[in-house]
């Protein structure tokens, strides 16, 4: 067993955490790689956005399909999973005051993911230098075939991520054995464990289907059944997005504590909700298979509902308990008047908080509401593979996950990179610009999808086709509007990248051993001092949050029935 000494650690003045230097280096490299890939993927995203504007149509179809494949892979997989590796190491080592298990394997994780991503990039971007294309989209459904190194790159990337998961689990074993914490794991680390369990399932599914597909691409296997591929691939493709949800929810809980000194309203409820994710969230991969032939409705309904919607229940719980914890903390600190004083007086100029809260509200109202409705087996028929889909998942992955990752970055930079945030004025505005872009983008695209505009489509005007079809003018208008805000979203992303690069390369250094930064006071400690034990009204500690939750509830119910009303007017289908 490796021995560690105190000199392997430093006490961080910003967070007060005892930080393992090797772990910190790995967090740095993974986070840095993530941000670079966000930039790369984002640039392809701008190309996609400017092509999907019917009045611009920047790229030729071939280049568009290449850019769309690159954008999907880089932003959905590479940026997010690199960042998640940083988060996992941070949770296992930094948060627990612990050393990282097997740093060499952790480096293997980093390099395998990097080499894998590079291989995929070479395959996808080959048309730029006259090579054979691999424009098969992120989903790479056979019988469409990419170059062999496309699949090989994905496999290496996934193996790297799997190694990262086990390094995290090993790190937890060390923490337990070396007693770096007492009792149960902190809630955010519990969330990290949840994400890891789902990640292992996800990556194994990916390996199960990508390895045979790779063998098929080199001619060793004659045939990949397209339906089988979809069933197994979505165990990877969908579940990988569930890892994001779990990770960003953990980040919400973390930020609530960092900014407000809030504690979870109930450890039991929040952990129970994470447990529901482990048990039921992966069933959601059938959301992508609802309009496929050969799968029975019984199987579809059981899975698409995550067995009685128990994973939806979990998300609804987190959606209440995170703002609820903030409300209780604010009230205990004296903002115990009215329904929303606690929220009005929140630090809206602090991008750590504003980013987190925008992520929470946007994820609930845009990604969440639409996700629940679109995954109904019957409703799926009127949205499947339309622009509604990109609208929805930008409402989860960009509005929710990416915004949360950006928000926590503003805290991680001083802690991990030991630099103060540079361009603080830009950082303050960044969550608002980025969210404005992402929210309008998502909503406009969902509108266009409801009007039938297809996704992954280079030319929605069908120019020059004898069997012409014209989408309604309003659909084209919504595409123009949405993609303009797509560019606004890109501006927000570039602001983030500028702040990150300026801070870590030119930000004011926070020297080791400098005086501890003032910490946010624990709300309970304040309440103890002031004797404020009973807060809230109507016998509820968080009545404002309850009202917000009721608005969300009414939105879901209304939107659910509006969609059934629309469904009931179309051709009979049975």
């Amino acid at each position, binding site marked *: 067993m490796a021995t560690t000494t105190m000199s392997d650690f430093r006490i961080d003045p910003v967070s007060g955490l005892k930080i393992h230097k090797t772990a910190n280096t790995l967090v740095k490299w993974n986070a840095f790689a993530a941000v670079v890939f966000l930039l790369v993927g984002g640039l392809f995203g701008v190309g996609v956005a400017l092509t999907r504007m019917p009045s611009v149509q920047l790229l030729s*179809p071939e280049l568009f399909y290449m850019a769309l494949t690159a954008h999907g892979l880089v932003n959905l997989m590479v940026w997010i999973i690199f960042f998640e590796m940083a988060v996992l190491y941070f949770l296992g080592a930094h948060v627990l005051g612990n050393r990282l298990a097997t740093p060499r394997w952790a480096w293997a994780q980093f390099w395998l993911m990097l080499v894998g991503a590079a291989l995929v990039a070479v395959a996808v971007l080959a048309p730029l230098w006259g090579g054979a294309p691999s424009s098969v989209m992120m989903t790479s459904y056979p019988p469409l075939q990419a170059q062999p190194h496309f699949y090989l790159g994905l496999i290496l990337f996934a193996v790297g991520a799997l190694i990262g998961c086990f390094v995290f689990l090993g790190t937890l074993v060390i923490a337990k054995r070396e007693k770096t914490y007492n009792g149960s794991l902190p809630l955010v680390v519990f969330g990290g464990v949840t994400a890891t369990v789902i990640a292992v399932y996800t990556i194994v599914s990916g390996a199960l289907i990508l390895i045979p597909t790779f063998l098929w691409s080199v001619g060793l296997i004659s045939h990949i059944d*397209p339906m089988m591929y979809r069933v197994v691939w979505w165990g990877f493709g969908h579940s990988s997005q569930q890892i994001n949800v779990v990770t960003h929810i953990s980040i919400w809980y973390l930020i609530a504590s960092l900014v407000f000194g809030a504690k979870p309203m109930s450890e039991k409820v929040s952990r129970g909700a994470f447990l529901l994710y482990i048990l039921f969230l992966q069933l959601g991969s059938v959301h992508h298979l609802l309009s496929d032939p050969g799968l029975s409705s019984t199987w579809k309904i059981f899975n698409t509902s995550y067995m009685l919607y128990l994973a939806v229940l979990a998300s609804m719980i987190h959606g209440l308990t995170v703002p609820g914890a903030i409300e209780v903390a604010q009230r205990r600190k004296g903002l115990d008047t009215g329904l929303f004083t606690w929220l009005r007086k929140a630090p809206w100029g602090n991008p750590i908080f504003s980013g987190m809260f925008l992520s929470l509200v946007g994820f609930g109202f845009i990604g969440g509401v639409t996700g629940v409705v679109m995954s109904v*087996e019957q409703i799926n028929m009127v949205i499947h593979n339309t622009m509604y889909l990109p609208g929805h998942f930008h409402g989860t992955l960009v509005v929710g996950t990416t915004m949360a990752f950006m928000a926590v970055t503003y805290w991680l930079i001083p802690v991990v990179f030991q630099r103060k945030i540079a361009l603080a004025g830009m950082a303050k505005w960044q969550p608002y610009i980025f969210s404005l872009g992402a929210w309008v983008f998502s909503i406009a695209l969902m509108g266009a999808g409801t009007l039938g505009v297809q996704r992954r*489509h280079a030319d929605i005007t069908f120019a020059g086709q004898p069997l012409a079809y014209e989408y309604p003018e309003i659909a084209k208008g919504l595409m123009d509007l949405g993609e303009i805000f797509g560019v606004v979203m890109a501006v927000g992303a570039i602001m983030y990248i500028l702040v990150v690069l300026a801070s870590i390369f030119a930000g004011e250094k926070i020297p080791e051993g400098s005086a501890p930064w003032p910490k946010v006071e624990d709300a309970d400690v304040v309440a103890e001092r002031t004797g404020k034990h009973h807060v809230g009204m109507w016998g*509820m500690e968080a009545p404002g949050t309850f009202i917000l939750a009721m608005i969300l509830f009414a939105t879901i119910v209304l939107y659910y029935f509006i969609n059934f009303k629309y469904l009931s007017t179309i051709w009979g289908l049975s």
Partner: protein
Amino acid sequence: MGTSYTPPTNPDWWREPIERTEIWWIVLAFAWCLFMFGWMVGWHFVGPQNMSNEAYKTTPEAFSKKVADMQAKYTVRKDEATGEDVVAPPPGSDVYLAAMQWQYRPILELQKGQKYRLHMSSLDVGHGFSLQPENINFQVYPGYEQVTTITPNKTGIFAIACGEYCGGVDAMGHHTMLGRIYVKE
């Protein structure tokens, strides 16, 4: 006392009572979850729009032959725009529609208010059936033949766009793929 990033201060956190805000929300949310589940099942019994559960294994050759047989039997006229056959199978019959790079064929003519058994399969890669402006969307695969009973409830000219990326080059590809269904009284 406590935060989300430190261990729970009460080691017996499992026995802590749950606060009322959370209890009410969990009860309400769970009731809605059960309702949604019941409604999705119930729509299969009372709703007129449901996924078909009927599907068969097939091959591109076998399916092409069924399409050709139907076309030989029920072609009624030439389409003005393309000069291709327009096929009008009788109400209640089996209708075959093939997806291929990069079109849906044949062009069909159906009657409003009549039932048809629509068979769909692909002759090459994966495609998506997307009927516009109704916005009805299904996946279509090679090797699988899905049968959906359809009842057009409006007259007019309907386009079939492709809902699943199916490759192609600039001049011709996923973005140029179309088919057509005429529905008359």
